């Protein structure tokens, strides 16, 4: 299959991304480059200088809303991509309305309690939509511990499920980007199976 055929197929789909930090921004870039037609991106945060160490933003974007800056960056990569942004704190109340039209959803939150709330809500309210979770990516090295697990047709997990990010054990670009791209790869696999 040629790249143009892959791009044309992926152009039909809408993928949700919950969080536009290290996982979300880097995952979005790979999905945009590969040809996914529409990305629905939700985040409530502004870009801080410290984010530049691993998130897909630039120094001159510090202070901007992540949703706005990410849309700008994705459009610079592929002008024809459709990016729907939601500048909002996701909760049980709005997750369904934000992501209901997506064929696949990527969980890209930072905090583990938000991950839990998001997974529980999506699996209950949006049953049937495949959800790709990222969990365990702090530190460096230990590449062989990063794995991809399919729990069932609607739940997949990327990461080592062990390394908790803290101030003294921060997430670093290489492992963050590996996991973000494992998530993107899972999205592509699911969408390509719909040929």
């Amino acid at each position, binding site marked *: 299959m040629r790249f143009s055929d892959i791009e044309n197929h992926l152009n039909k789909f809408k993928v949700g991304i919950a969080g536009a930090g290290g996982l*979300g921004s880097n995952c979005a870039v790979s999905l945009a480059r590969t040809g996914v037609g529409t990305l629905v991106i939700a985040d409530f945060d502004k870009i801080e200088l410290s984010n530049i160490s691993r998130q897909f933003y630039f120094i001159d974007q510090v202070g901007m809303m992540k949703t706005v800056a990410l849309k700008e960056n994705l459009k610079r990569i592929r002008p024809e991509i459709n990016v729907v942004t939601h500048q909002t704190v996701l909760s049980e109340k709005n997750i369904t309305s934000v992501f209901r039209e997506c064929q696949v959803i990527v969980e890209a939150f*930072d905090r583990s309690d938000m*991950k839990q709330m998001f*997974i529980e809500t999506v*699996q209950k309210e949006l049953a049937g939509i495949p959800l790709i979770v990222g969990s365990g990516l702090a530190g460096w090295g230990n590449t062989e511990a990063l794995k991809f697990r399919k729990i069932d047709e609607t739940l997949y997990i990327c990461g080592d499920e062990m*390394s*908790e*990010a803290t101030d003294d054990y921060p997430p670093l670009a290489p492992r963050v980007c590996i996991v973000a791209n494992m998530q993107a790869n899972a999205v592509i696999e699911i969408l390509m199976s719909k040929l």
Partner: protein
Amino acid sequence: MKIILNNREEEFDKDFLTVSEMLESKKFSFRMRIIKINGELISKEKYDSAEIKDGDIVQMLYLMSGG
């Protein structure tokens, strides 16, 4: 009872356990997780009441901060 926990067989002395009891007996200490019993997601409010019985397939994934 025997259950399948993350694709591995596990044996317990009891005939059934709540999710909380199973976590305690296995000394699983991570705070944030997702648990499915026979494919059904058990929300965290139900860990004290949802029961795991002989033959059940239990899937557990750990949620770590960072993203």
